[in-house]
């Protein structure tokens, strides 16, 4: 079991950061960014997820093996998204037969 003791202050800070980022998501959604809207929303969401993984799940203080395990999970998620997007992006290149 992890022996690392995380001070309460860290948890409170991270929690506050998550709340600020949530508020930011809501605020940004009211502005007009065109094609950038989704990337901006995703960037904030990924930052929040990273904070949860690193601090609330203690991955920052865990052994290298645990960190590799988490990184592998993220890597395979990226593989899934990347190859699926490869289909979605290139699906129209040949056009639709008969149209």
């Amino acid at each position, binding site marked *: 079991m992890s022996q690392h003791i995380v001070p309460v202050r860290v948890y409170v800070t991270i929690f506050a950061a998550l709340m600020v980022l949530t508020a930011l998501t809501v605020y940004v959604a009211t502005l007009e960014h065109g094609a950038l809207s989704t990337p901006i929303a995703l960037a904030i969401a990924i930052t929040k997820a990273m904070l949860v993984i690193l601090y609330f799940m203690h991955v920052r203080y865990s052994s290298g093996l645990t960190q590799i395990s988490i990184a*592998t999970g993220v890597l395979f998620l990226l*593989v899934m998204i990347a190859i*699926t997007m*490869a289909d*979605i*992006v*290139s*699906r129209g*290149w040949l056009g639709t037969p008969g149209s």
Partner: protein
Amino acid sequence: MDTQVTNEHDRQEHYLNVDYGIRSWLLTRDHKRIALLYLGSITFMFFLGGIFALVIRLELLTPAGDIVGADTYNKLFTMHGVIMIFFFLIPSIPAVLGNFLVPLMIGARDLAFPRINLASWYIYSLGALFGLWAVFTGGVDTGWTFYAPYSTTASYTKVVPTIVGAFLVGFSSIFTGLNFIVTIHRMRAPGLTWFRLPLFIWAHYATSVIIILGTPVIAITLGLVAVERVFRIGIFDPALGGDPILFQHLFWFYSHPAVYIMILPSMGIISEVITCFSRKRIFGYSFIAVSSLAIALLGFLVWGHHMFVSGQSVYAALIFSVLSFAVAIPSAVKVFNWTATLYKGSISFEAPMVYALGFIGLFTIGGLTGLFLAALGLDVHVHDTYFVVAHFHYIMVGGAIMGYLAGIHFWWPKITGRLYPETLARIAALIVFLGFNLTFFPQFVLGYLGMPRRYYVYPPEFQVLNVMSTAGATILGVGYLLPMLYLTWSLRWGARAGANPWRATGLEWQTPSPPPTYNFATTPLVTEEPYAYPLREAREY
């Protein structure tokens, strides 16, 4: 109980007689007892799924729809697939033999998380109850693939309970996989380095990695189906703004690797059995070990071969086709190493070996026909025909179940302390092999001739081959009932097995049969490579 005079053998305390009563089983944390709980559950599911298969084959005996209508037929093949895949094949070897053997093979007292292990069986059982609820309150007709938008919009059957069942069973296998990975990393006996591990352990390690990386995806995907179905939120249904091909991506991202969840543990068993009954060190140990990991990795990059004709981009299909061919390499590494192990071995044909040899042949046929299907042009011709049905049954039944039966026979003496009747078991193995081929080989021909899958009627010219297939299915059914009967018989009347009836290597054979609750009286010390059988690799080439 402790003052009772029992016969000499029963006086030795082991995991089965250490205490009695339903409570001692339902609250056990012993990995060996949990393995037996799983054995009971999955055997029940196997025979339920088998009954559906037999009704399907009976219906296909004649070209007309004689005993069921179209709707019932759709439900039959769906429930056959759902039960066999989610409730039998995925948990079969890992949750039963893996659970029993992983700690024994690495010299550990139990798995790393015994309570999580028990919880996994309860979650499995809860999932199975949802599955049975769906089956007995009208069934489900989407096919085991739950393709959207049919599953989310059109089907009026019990889709959501089935999905909840599959979802829960997925979590039980995540628990099992997590347990294996931690146990294999942290609890190996002193001296048991990674390249001294039995190949069964390597196979289960690779399987666990697939389970942990893949299962969350299917859980979320099925969850999204339920969300779209219940709340009409558009994810997959084009009418609601969704993308149906997205469903297939997400579904097959798990469900292609799931084939390796079924076949890799089976391959681990074959490696153990082949080397034992050849009395020869396994050929190419490290290649077999690493090929398991290679299959686990590559297996995640090929899912689109299920979507060649579904509207996927041609360019994506090209990449998926090439990568699918690549999976043949680590698979062939295994097959060639097994046959090289047989070469100049001192071979004997005990029942596990008969199953193992059957596995090699049937897996090879299943694998090679997989290459036909990975070829873009050929797949257009045979997709959704009986060729596909035959192909995946050669992998899942001819491969995974043959390996499972090899393993059940091989370790039965260790699990129960009793020998099974050898002659009867060899006959049963041959019956399974013959029945299997008679059932499924004609389906290759049927598919090549163009008979589509999932229809309850067919043109009369296909009847002869269908009759052969149905006849084979009844033989196969007998082949599966026989082990069920004589293994149960052996519990009471089978000869006592010593600690090591096969003179096999491996730590599990160095403790009494059945093993004591904490497996080993003292933690074993490993000083040599695995498979130190008398015969070495042949020197003359």
